[in-house]
């Protein structure tokens, strides 16, 4: 009857014992895996509710993440069109300014260096500012030559643009240099804030998922109090008793992940049309990016991990309290 009899010391019987134990272990895992799914399916409404709550909790941060990814996609396009305006020193004449422009265009970091002569600058300024009279009184053109630099296409990050700007400032001919699209920088800063917000939100919702699953498992444990007592009396180990609850947590997490995936896919479908109208208006070929396979995998991994963790904590806290009587 008992299986724990003295094992013979011969190697093959030890191997047999290990094999037998392993197959028992695997069998019991398979049983708990299927059994826990069956238990969930037997109470479809209540469990669907739980899974839906988990799904929404997972969908929120995932949705924000996808929106952020899309925003980054848009901004990356803009960033390469950042321009740097170089105001040259007043004593630099048009010829040497043009020479500098040609020199700068050789720089691989620079895609284009446009030259605006003093006269052109004055004409434009007069046209835009309305200070025509005042400028005429001055008699002399007070404006410096200007070079408009467009960073090379290979340069995308704000950091690299910043380096380029610093380098250009070092040039002896240059009086001052500045981005003429400071707001892109501000937008990046804003996106950074939103990114941090998404991380905080994700952490809070992850805790919420843990609590939901933990509480659901706690209730399941109390509902199965009698069963747990009986199985303990008939010699079930803690591992045996835990298994179906842990797998329930697994199923909750996996189900929540699936629902989150579904919700996001539907939401993106709904957004796709208006977004393409908008991007057409901007003459852009921007396409809304959806969840990649990698995203889906990490979403499911998160769901399953939270499910297992939540049920593990709950099981360890509450199973000990039940003893056969």
């Amino acid at each position, binding site marked *: *009857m*008992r*299986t*724990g009899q003295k094992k013979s010391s011969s190697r093959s019987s030890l191997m047999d014992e290990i094999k037998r134990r392993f197959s*028992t*272990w695997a*069998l*019991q895992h398979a*049983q708990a895996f299927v059994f826990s799914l069956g238990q969930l399916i037997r109470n479809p409404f209540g469990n669907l509710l739980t899974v839906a709550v988990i799904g929404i909790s997972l969908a929120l941060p995932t949705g924000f993440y996808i929106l952020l990814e899309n925003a980054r996609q848009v901004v990356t396009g803009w960033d390469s069109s950042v321009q740097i305006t170089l105001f040259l020193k007043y004593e630099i004449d048009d010829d040497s300014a043009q020479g500098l422009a040609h020199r700068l265009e050789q720089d691989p970091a620079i895609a284009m260096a446009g030259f605006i002569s003093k006269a052109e600058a004055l004409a434009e300024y007069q046209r835009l500012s309305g200070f025509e009279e005042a400028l005429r009184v001055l008699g002399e053109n007070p404006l410096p030559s200007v070079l408009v630099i467009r960073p090379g296409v290979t340069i995308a990050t704000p950091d690299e643009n910043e380096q380029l700007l610093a380098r250009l400032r070092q040039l002896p001919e240059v009086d001052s240099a500045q981005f003429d699209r400071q707001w892109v920088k501000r937008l990046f800063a804003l996106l950074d804030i939103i990114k941090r917000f998404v991380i905080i939100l994700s952490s809070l919702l992850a805790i919420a998922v843990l609590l939901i699953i933990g509480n659901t498992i706690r209730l399941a444990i109390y509902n199965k109090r*009698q*069963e747990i007592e*009986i*199985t*303990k*009396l*008939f*010699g*079930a*180990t*803690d591992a*045996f008793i835990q298994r179906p609850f842990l797998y329930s947590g697994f199923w909750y997490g996996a189900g929540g992940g699936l629902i989150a995936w579904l919700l996001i896919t539907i939401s993106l479908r709904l957004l796709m049309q208006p977004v393409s109208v908008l991007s057409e208006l901007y003459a852009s070929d921007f396409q809304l990016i959806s969840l990649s396979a990698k995203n889906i995998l990490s979403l499911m991994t998160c769901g399953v991990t939270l499910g297992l963790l939540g049920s593990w904590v709950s099981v360890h806290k509450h199973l000990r309290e039940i*003893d*056969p*009587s």
Partner: protein
Amino acid sequence: MIRFTNVHMTYAGGNEALKNINLHIAQGAMAFVSGRSGAGKSTLLRLIALIDRHTRGQIIINGQNLERVRDQRIPLFRRNIGFMFQDHRLLVDRTVFDNVALPLVIAGYRYQDVRKRVQAALDKVGLLHKANSNPVALSGGEQQRVGVARAVVHRPALLLADEPTGNLDPALSWDTMKLFEQFNQVGVTVLIASHDLDLIKRMHKRIITLRQGRLLTNAADIGQS
């Protein structure tokens, strides 16, 4: 099979449930524990099953000194014991078959073995045709017999029953006792707690009587021991 030497059991609240119990039940014997409610019958069974641990003395079950059975080994120890309760304590969310299969599933038997053994056990108690019913659909007597099948399906060396006939009428009680006797005849040591003295006297087995936590020595010993 069961040997108690100067066993005391004091519960955490200070309630002295058993006092200085000396007892020996041989392998393959069948014995009854009788006494009033609160005399310590259940406590005696609980100590044997390691549901509670005795506070003093020595208990040896099936050659194992219970003090040496560590908590982690309790599950393995219990797999050698079958349990019966007054309230059948079947799980109503599954079939009779699954209820009886429970001890085998816990021990990790393969499905083919589980099926064979469950069918044999159900056949033995005459309920094979109810294998796929839900326990709530059975009569009280049938439920109790399912309980018996579950208690013996894993062929334990020792069968413990706490008031197994408490909810049954005399005829069914007698049938249940006879069933226990059959299992005893194939070598299972059987220990039954019961306060139904008339019934257990008719079984002509050893009767261990407890009164206020003490053993009444040979007071009601009739029949073989």
